[in-house]
């Protein structure tokens, strides 16, 4: 497997690192405190490819806590709110876009 440090990583805008939590699969985001959060609002934002490479490398080092880490785009709204940068990340962050069959509580 290619080391994340050697992977060609090029970002074109603000980005974050996301993965799934190992024990339950929940969507998580890498934080600036070198941990993980289930909230996109807590995600560390990187703006250069070098920063992205470093953040991804740190994320991949936590093989027990998270799986499948990758870099994904975000939008930074006026006021600093972080929003997913594409539909896939929107669905991962906000949940299904469909109506489910009614399941009794």
């Amino acid at each position, binding site marked *: *497997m290619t080391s994340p440090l050697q992977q060609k990583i090029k970002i074109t805008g603000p980005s974050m690192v996301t993965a*799934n939590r*190992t*024990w*339950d*699969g*929940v*969507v998580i985001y890498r934080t600036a405190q070198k941990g993980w959060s289930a909230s996109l609002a807590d995600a560390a934002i990187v703006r250069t490819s070098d920063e992205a490479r470093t953040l991804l490398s740190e994320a991949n080092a936590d*093989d*027990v806590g998270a*799986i*499948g880490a990758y870099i994904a785009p975000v939008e930074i709204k006026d006021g600093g709110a972080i929003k997913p940068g*594409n*539909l*896939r990340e929107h*669905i*991962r962050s906000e*949940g*299904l*876009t*469909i*109506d*489910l*069959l*009614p*399941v*009794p509580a």
Partner: protein
Amino acid sequence: MYAYDELDRTLINERVSEFRDQVKRRLSGELTEDEFKMLRLQNGVYLQLHAYMFRVAIPYGTLSSKQMRAFARVARKYDRGYGHFTTRQNIQFNWIKLAELPDALADLAEVGIHAMQTSGNNMRNVTSDQWAGVAPGEVEDPRIWSEILRQHTTLHPEFSFLPRKFKIAITASEHDRAAIKIHDIGLRLLKNADGETGFEVLVGGGLGRTPFIGKTIKPFVHGRDILSYVEAILRVYNQYGRRDNIYKARIKILVHELGIEKFAKEVEEEWKQMSDGALTLDYSVVEEVRSRFSYPAYEKLPHMPDELKQAAHDPLFERWRKNSVFPHKVQGYSIVTLSLKPVGGPPGDATADQMDAVADLADRYSFGEIRVGHEQNLCLPHVAKRDLPQLWKALERIGLATPNVNLVTDIIACPGLDYCSLANARSIPIAQELTRRFANHDTADLIGRLHINISGCINACGHHHVGHIGILGVEKNGDEFYQITIGGRADEGAQMGTLIGPAVPYAEVADVIEDIVEAYLALRDRPEELFVDTVKRLGVEPFKERVYATR
């Protein structure tokens, strides 16, 4: 139903213990994800967008009421209260926690259910006709042979690390409900001139990035030779199949590149060396497997009971009966399809409560047996005709009596971008919008048989290539677009649909499908001419013109 023996039960239970230990080691960090990934995949555990997805096999689509209740328990206890029936007679749970998966597997093992080989580069769940054993005119029950193949290939070391996944489907009826022509190996059970049971063997079918219809490699292989012949095919594939390129690794590519004649010659050479060996099926072995299938003690019942005559006055019942009830091989009984395609619902989904209710209805009306078809619907295979009115009322109460089987709203759809990590575009919302557009049952009846298949990416889990109308989601500059094909079919006359033109954006898909259907209604030469036959007669041009003239 097939009754597992001690060997089967031991195998399943050992597998649960093994996986429990693997999960424990993964969560402790003793196993890395790289080391664990193949192990979880061999137990049907994928990582999807939001969570782990757990795929469980329903061999040849046959389930007992007990097993269905176990699915309901898993859905309720470990998931979010529902499950999704797939196009290959599996059920998927979308929200399961890795830490709880061993317990879920153990619960399923108690009723003889497992997830072995529902993923990975091995022999997948052997699928069959959901009407197996009850369809009128069937040569014989194809599940006997499905089970023999299942037993032989499960955990077979030679076939656990194939170049790519490998799928077999078997039918025993003239009308193919198992889509055998789009499988790696398709088997059609038949009798030769001497009345001996055997198979027409097809090879190299498949969809995905490079779709092919399976080709007949041998028109008749005697039943006693089917294991050795299938094994010969697998050996040739194992030897020559490409492992350097995932997109060229399926057997269909090998068959295409070698040509069917050369491929057949290779198989024949291989088979010569083993055709009279240990894999030749002794009659007693086949009979032993046959004896482990139990069949209902059918009563002698009238063809047209009074209960049915009375209920026929209710137009809603009649609409459902004409749509969802099919002839059975035994007089006085019917096969009933339970639509998992309610208007506005996700195709193929069932809640835990519905699963429990179906299990109860199976006990009351279908000798405790349920079937699952590749069209993502359920089926009660042994319903006495006198019970149909009561069954219909019960199905109405649980939302499983939508009279849309084989109609425009009986849509096959993959989970798409709402769940799947491979998808480029959403499938389910497109299906839901279409079911709302065509919600009027009179309109759907007027249109007649029309299969719409939707895939959220080129991997084609929604079998879009063979839909009468196929919809394939693609991504263009971050937006969802959809390619439309028409004229495909998955039955005995299987063929790929033809692309009608440039992809259309998400918001326009339902309008485009409405245009195509309206064009068909105007173009068909009589009400009985099916959509797919009109396309065959006229080609795609008139439809293309209708769709793109104003776009």
